[in-house]
Each structure stands twice: as C-alpha cells, then as structure tokens.
C-alpha cells in the first residue's frame, strides 16, 4: 500500500469531494472521500440535493390519486413500479378487488419497466467503467419498451398510468403483439450483452472482488433486491411475500454465486440484474398468455376515495429492492401521512461499509453496482 507521507514523516490524509456534479454518481450525489494516496479510508455520502418534499406534498394533496404523479418522480427510472406499489397500498386500504385484466396489464408493465430499469442500470454501470458501447446498444432495447409505454399511457418517462382501482386508460389494441414481439427480439440481446460486457475480461477485472458485501452485512443494513441477491441470499418479495398476482407465475430467483471472484462483489450484483431480465421475460410471456382480451380496466369506486381510519405498510419488489409505502389514513380524502421506504436510500447507507480500502476508481464501480437513483434517495 502506498502511503502519502509529509516532510515530517507523518501520514497525510486528504479529503476530497466527489460530486455532486460527477458523471458517475448517477445524479446529484456528493461523496466525501478521505483518501490515503489513492486508497479510500472513509466514504461519507451527502444527500439531499434532489429533495422535493414528496412526503409533505402527499399530505397536502386533497386526493389519493393526486399523489400518483409524485410517486413517478421518486424513482424516475422505474416509474411503473413506484405507481404499482402505491396503488396496491391504497387498494388494500380500501379493501378493493381490481379486475383480472388490470392485474395482468399491471404485471406486464411492471416487468417491462423492471427490464428497462435494469437496462439503464447495467448500461450506466458499464459506462462508468469505460464501456460506452453496451450503454448505447442497451438503450436501443430500452427505447422499444418506452415506445410500448408511450403508446399505452401517452408518456415516455413519468407515466401516471396506474390509477387507484385500475388503469388510467386501456392499452392499445396491438399491445399484446408488440410485447410478444419485444420478448422475442430481446432474448438474443441478453446473449449479446453477455458477450459484449458480462464476460469481457476487462470488465470482469474491474468488478470482480470489488466492493464485497457479505450476506450478514447486507442483512444488517436491510438490503434488498439485486443487492441482497447478489450476496447469495434468496429473497424476492414476488416469491416470498407475493402481491398482485405474482403467485401465479413460475420464475426463478437468480442469486450471486461468486463465479468470477468472491460472493457479493460488484460482478455478482451485476449478473443478478442480467439474469433477472430473463426471468422478467418469462413472467411477461406467462402473463401474456393469461391476460384476458376483453374487460374493464377500472373497478367501480366512488369519486372521492376515503379509506377508513388506520395505517398499513405495503411492500413491493421494485427493480432496486423492497419498495414500501406506509400510509396513514384519517378517513379524510387526503392521506394523513405517506412514507416511502426507498431501497436506494438503504443501499446508499451501505456504501461506507463496503468501500473501505477500495481505490477511487473502484468507488465508481461500487456506486454503479448498487444502482441508486438519487430521486428516490432524496425523495
């Protein structure tokens, strides 16, 4: 280990800022690095640059439906999943049954969004490590998903598509064909991604054995999603605590195995996402088969929703991990309190624990591998 030594022979530490305007911090994240030469002694993430008072806004809204566009803006990369969690929470509060068709469309949308989100996560991860090409190729595929979403909902990024008790509008008539088409064309692309990036020697050298997260530490920090699964722990809320209609589908939970280095390193977290996309394709195929062609996309509900007094916590599996909504109702038309448990926030808090002793260049890899979205961290 090289140590910076001053004239007087004392070891010198240097504190530098990484971000908030750094290209590889995935938004506006400021990392305070205490360095000894190039070795990172300590990392302190500073957040709050993108704080938009989501929770306070939710209390100010005079309707439960008005919160949905704000949930979109929390994690803008996986807006469908954010909406899904929120509407499920409100529906459970109202003890509402939604039509079968709605459930299927929601699942298809959520899984497509999961693929889109992982594509961006993987692509940006590669980009951080200097692999520019996969990023662009993956965006071609992501664009196809966004086109499907645009046709269905009218928007490309912030959909506001799921409504309490249903969907804002019905899907377009060609929806099924388009999704089936996408599934067919996307499968070979995963193979291409593996060739281009996953097993690329340079990429493996940059990610294997870097930022190792032991499963115990992951559990202590309440990690979830691909980060926890990358450490080899089989935990997926779609299987372990099924919501919506996920119990009807047959899919596997990919976990990290330490194939390239040690268990729970950056590469494991990365490959879990790649494998998860394949599982999402499987779910989409099954959902397409089961989806009824005709039917309402909205259950009958009163114009003003007033859930009865009480509180509840609903958790769903977003592409980044366990996304929970804790809602308190005081029987009025506006929520008394909405608290979002954001996986990115939890995962960012782990950063100091797993990046001790890493090099500066590895910090970039670690931040990329936990795939945070700062909109969700700060809310």
């Amino acid at each position, binding site marked *: 280990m090289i140590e910076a030594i001053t004239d007087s022979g004392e070891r010198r530490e240097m504190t530098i800022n990484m971000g908030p305007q750094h290209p590889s911090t995935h938004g506006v994240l400021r990392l305070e690095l205490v360095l000894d030469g190039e070795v990172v002694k300590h990392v302190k993430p500073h957040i709050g640059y993108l704080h938009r008072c989501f929770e306070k806004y939710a209390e100010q*809204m005079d*309707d439960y*439906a*008005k919160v*949905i*566009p*704000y949930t979109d803006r929390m994690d803008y990369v996986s807006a469908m999943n954010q909406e899904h969690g929120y509407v499920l929470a409100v529906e459970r509060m109202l003890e509402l049954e939604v039509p079968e068709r709605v459930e299927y469309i929601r699942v298809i949308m959520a899984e497509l969004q999961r693929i889109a989100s992982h594509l961006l996560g993987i692509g940006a991860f590669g980009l951080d490590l200097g692999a520019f*090409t996969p990023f662009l*190729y993956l965006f*071609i595929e992501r*664009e196809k998903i966004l086109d499907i979403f*645009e*046709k269905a*909902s*009218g*928007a490309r990024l*912030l959909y*506001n598509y799921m409504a309490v008790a249903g969907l*804002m*509008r019905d899907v*377009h008539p060609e929806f099924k064909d388009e999704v089936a088409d996408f599934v067919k064309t996307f499968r070979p692309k995963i193979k*291409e991604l593996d*060739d*281009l990036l996953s*097993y*690329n*020697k*340079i990429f493996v050298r940059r990610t294997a054995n870097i930022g190792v997260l032991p499963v115990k530490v992951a559990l202590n920090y309440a990690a979830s999603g691909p980060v926890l699964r990358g450490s080899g722990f089989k935990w997926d809320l779609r299987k372990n605590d099924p919501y919506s209609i996920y119990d009807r589908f047959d899919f596997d939970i990919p976990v990290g195995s330490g194939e390239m280095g040690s268990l729970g390193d950056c590469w494991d977290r990365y490959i879990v996402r790649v494998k998860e996309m394949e599982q999402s394709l499987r779910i989409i195929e099954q959902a397409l088969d089961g989806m009824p062609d005709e039917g309402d996309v909205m259950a009958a509900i009163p114009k003003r929703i007033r859930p009865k007094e009480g509180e509840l916590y609903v958790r769903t599996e977003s592409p980044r991990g366990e996304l929970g909504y804790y809602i308190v109702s005081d029987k009025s038309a506006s929520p008394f309190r909405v608290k979002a448990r954001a996986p990115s926030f939890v995962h960012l808090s782990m950063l100091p624990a797993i990046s001790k002793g890493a090099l500066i260049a590895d910090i970039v890899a670690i931040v990329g591998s936990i795939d945070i979205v700062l909109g969700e961290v700060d809310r």
Partner: protein
Amino acid sequence: MVEAFKNSWITFKSIFIGMGITIRHFFGKSVTLQYPDERPVLPNNARAKLYVNIDDCIGCNLCARACPVNCIYIDTVPSTSDVDLGKTSTGNPKRFWLTRFDIDMAKCMYCDLCVHPCPTNCIYMVSEYEYSEFNRTNLIYHFSNLEPAMVAEVKEKAANEAAEKQRQREEMMRKKAEEAKMKQIEAKKQAEEKNDGEKGSEPSKKENGDS
C-alpha cells in the same frame, strides 16, 4: 507466466468478440433519428401539450380542482337571463361566461389527471411537442375567446343582474318582514282581544285602563 499468457489470450478474445458485435451493429440498420430533419411520430394519445376546446367548456372547474400543481386558472361569470350561451357538442347546457381559462404549461406536469374528470371532454392532451419559448410567461396559454371589452360588458351585466337580484331579494325580504310584522301585530291584537274576552270577568280593570 502461463497464467499471464492465458489472461492476455482471454482479454484478446473478449475484445474480438466485442468488436464482432460492434461491426454487426455498424452494418445493421441505424436507429438514430436526425432530429430537426426527421421527427418522431408520436402516437395520437401522446401527452405533450394541453389543449382546451373552449366552445365545449361549461366552466365546471373540475379540471382545475383535479390538478395537483394548480396550473389551470378558471374565472367564470354567470350568464344573464337575456343571453343563451347554447349547448356543448355533448349536450350540456352552458351557464357561464369563461372570462379566463389559462393554463400555465411551464407548471404543468403532464399527468393527465385533468383530462378524465371533464364532463364534456373538452380538455385533452395533444401530441404537439415543439413549443419552447424564450420567455416563461409565453408558456401561459389563454384559451378564453372573450375580448377584454366583452369581458367587462359581461361582468357588468352579471353584476347588474346580481345587484338586481339582490335588490329583488331584499325587497322580497323586506316585504316578507313587513308581512311578518303585520301578522305579528295582528296576532298580538287578536291575542289581546282574546285576552280581553277572557278578561271580561274583570270589567273593573279594563274600564280603568280605558279611562
């Protein structure tokens, strides 16, 4: 040594595999749109800009209330009895002059929540997306088609009619109050007479009072 050679061979191989994919893409079809020359075709239901068909608006204010960011401003003046504003294309009678229907597109977050409550489907999203401005105030769209003079006239008329109505109401109230008073007095009188009748057994007092 062997390990080093093996590593270099694998690196070499993975570079070649990557290059092969890149070359395949290079000769494949391009997906990039050269934007100002080619424009993407948005689907019909794309949410890019709000539009209001003001002829169909009945001034019910439902869209403004549904808006989470309060970017719709509506002022209405009730129409006077001498004008008939007609009906919308959906058959709803119009009862208000829309003196102001402004949408601040700089504030709008394109959430589509205002579109659904509209009873006449007169507010909707259109797929026009090239409307950037140098000045933010230019993004406030005025949909009301009333001239300022017309607005003043309508307001005055409405105010006059409201005043007239108020006057009538006051008149009526006064009349009612008077009637009530009269009734009260009458009732009092009657009661007194009745009392008198009952008190007839005590003539001395009454006579005293009369004298």
